[in-house]
């Protein structure tokens, strides 16, 4: 293998690839990135970089001037660090000449030269293949909308592993077919939907694991075009322009979330979302580290936020609100309120409540595509 590549192109790809590699690995080759150089006659050469943690595999390919095709694996973080530290605008030469034993790979740029130990490319684990019968396209903005507005609610609880991801499935909402993303940690729930894309009509309900979600999110940022999603019962693949991420799905049953979205809540509060979030943030300064509780006291046309801590003191703030139902007091975790407020892009937020002990629904007043359910806490 012998090739030359621009530093900028290699660095960008490596940055994506190395983030898949776990920092601590018991299997040495999982710390490595598979580098494969291909040269087809009359076409530009390509260098493809692959990393995996056995649950998730990521491949990105970049143009390179390939003199001799070949493949090997080197430590991902070491390679990334080297490329990162090389001067901007460098041309990087990579070769592992079988004649020289092939047991090492040379990295060269300007006057810098590195020799890295390798592990054989044949030993690099391949994610099991198999058909991905369902395939549909999502615009980058659509996928971002699904991921951003749900991922904050993903649970980290090991005991309920089936909540450690985003549940994606096809559903019907008011007679319209939609693609839904749902995440919950039991304390809050986020449900986001969009018109069902062509090809997704018969998809099974799948749980995308947190790590795949987070990696996908990073890649969306740098993609303008469409992203192809294909999946089976056990695997999902996200194909970007030059990169493909394949992940196992969480093998579990997502709970029947519809049952916890209250239907009969009748007390409606509307606030200016930014004002509300800023006030919650200020008042929460006082609430204890452990509970982070803030109390919402609702009266006619007015909302009072307050927090109390036996150690720190107390805080209150009044904000204008549209509220006409009977006065109530209800407590929430301020962190959770802020997480949701951050996802609301419109000016207004609408809270639909029943009482101080029952789940509350929060929505953007101007956008019904996202719905959040939040469990109150005793205050």
């Amino acid at each position: 293998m012998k090739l030359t590549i621009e530093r900028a192109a290699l660095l960008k790809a490596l940055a994506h690839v190395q983030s898949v590699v776990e920092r601590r690995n018991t299997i040495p080759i999982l710390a490595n990135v598979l580098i494969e150089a291909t040269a087809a006659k009359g076409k530009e050469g390509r260098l493809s970089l692959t990393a995996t943690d056995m649950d998730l595999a990521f491949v990105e390919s970049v143009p390179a001037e390939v003199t001799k095709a070949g493949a090997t694996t080197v430590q991902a973080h070491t390679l990334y660090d080297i490329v990162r530290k090389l001067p901007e605008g460098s041309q990087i030469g990579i070769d592992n000449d079988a004649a020289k034993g092939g047991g090492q790979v040379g990295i060269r740029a300007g006057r810098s030269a590195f020799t890295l130990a390798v592990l054989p490319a044949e030993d690099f684990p391949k994610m099991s293949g198999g058909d991905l019968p369902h395939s549909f396209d999502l615009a980058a903005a659509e996928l971002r909308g699904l991921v951003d507005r749900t991922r904050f609610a993903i649970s980290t609880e090991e005991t309920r592993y089936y909540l450690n991801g985003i549940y994606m499935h096809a559903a019907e909402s008011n007679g319209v077919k939609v693609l839904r993303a749902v995440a919950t940690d039991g304390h809050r729930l986020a449900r986001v939907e969009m018109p069902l894309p062509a090809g997704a009509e018969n998809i099974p309900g799948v749980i995308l694991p947190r790590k795949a979600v987070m990696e996908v999110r990073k890649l969306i940022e740098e993609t303008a075009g469409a992203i192809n999603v294909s999946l089976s019962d056990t695997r999902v693949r996200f194909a970007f322009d030059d990169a493909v991420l394949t992940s196992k799905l969480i093998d579990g049953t997502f709970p029947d979330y519809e049952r916890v979205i209250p239907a009969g809540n009748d007390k409606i509060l509307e606030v200016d979302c930014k004002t509300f979030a800023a006030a919650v943030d200020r008042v929460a300064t006082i609430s204890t580290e452990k509970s982070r509780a803030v109390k919402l006291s609702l009266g006619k046309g007015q909302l009072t936020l307050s927090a109390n801590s036996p150690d720190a003191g107390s805080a209150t703030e009044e904000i204008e609100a549209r509220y006409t139902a009977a006065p109530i007091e209800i407590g929430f975790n301020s962190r959770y309120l802020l997480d949701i407020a951050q996802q609301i892009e419109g000016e207004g937020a609408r809270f639909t409540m029943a009482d101080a002990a029952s789940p509350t629904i929060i929505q953007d007043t101007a956008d019904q595509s996202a719905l959040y359910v939040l469990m109150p806490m005793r205050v």
Partner: protein
Amino acid sequence: MAPGLCRDCLSPLDRAGEAERCPRCGSTRLLFHPELFALAFAHVDCDAFYASVEKRDDPTLADRPLIVGGGRRGVATTACYIARRYGVRSAMPMFKALKLCPQAVVIRPDIAKYARVSRDVRALFDEATPLVEPVSLDEAYLDLAGTEAVHRRPPALTLAGLARRIETEIGITVSIGLSFNKFLAKLASEIDKPRGFGVIGRQEARGFLAGRPVRVIPGVGAKQEARLTADGIAMIGDLQRVGADELGRRYGAFGRRLAHLAEGEDSREVERDHEAKILSAETTFETDLAALPALEEELWPLCEKLAGRLKQAGLVGRTAVLKLKTADFRLLTRRHQLDRPTQLAEAMFRAARPLLAREAGRRRFRLIGIGLDDLMPAVEAGPPADLFGGPDDRLEAVERAIDRVREKFGPASIGKGRGLKPVRPRGQAKKSR
């Protein structure tokens, strides 16, 4: 002219002339120290506490060697000062203690009784100063700064009076260490045990420490001592010579801490009502155990015991701590952070079992313990209720139901299956006492 006091009649004295006896009462228990009335930080330690309590309650034991401890393979918990003359020490295996002192009387510890006596002692401490930090049943730190205005006598005299009251009103003796911080007060209380009164002043602290071995520093165990000795540091004087900068370079934060203590600097304060941040229950086995099922069988009742205490105290905790001691006395602790704070025996057991499974089978253990760390009041812990019903909800319902049945019909009325001991074949059944 060093100020002094008589520990029997509590008269303040000046070392004028060469008085060997108290001019007022004739006692020889006189104490002189240049800084005697300038120091206010004390460590009070009951002498051979368990043994002293037993001797108090049975005067026929007064002149006989006494060991409190027991069990077939137990250890000597406390040896009285007579037994100590034969070489018996605390934590010594019983068979060895009895080899050294075969005529010793052995009494099984009665912790409930010692706790009662400890409370009486504590009550007297509280009269001396509001700043009392009990370390265990038989020792406490007292900060008497500012008490002179209340008692109209300097802390040294208050302490001497305290020791005399504990002797006359409770019937046991204590040793007092008086200095200007925790570390030195503790060392001072060991200077002339039993029934002692040791003083370490600011002037002499550095010199006093220089001649002591490094292991008297809290936090320096056998392992650290070996490491320091290997580096040429055996005495605290060696630490003083090496200096803070070098110690910090060599041993990091641990080294800097050593350097401070070696210079007699200790900024820890007496913490009143030092709250328990961790609660635990443990047991030493009759014979060493290695197999997982046998260890689990010991673990479960401990979880129930600990849960009982947590429920009574209204506490929950977030981190389960499994403690194991190997047959060769190596201590292992394994921690697991729970998803949510708990006080349930079942939740603790479920958290500890995988930790135990990882350790079991490879070696033999003599002790197992379960603890819960990161404690907080249960009322404060309330995370928002769970939309789907938390995963512990069912466990909780079951355990609360068991608790209610036990409350009504007694602790043995109901329990989980895993709490049942395997039925022993006839003839080998353990005799109940």
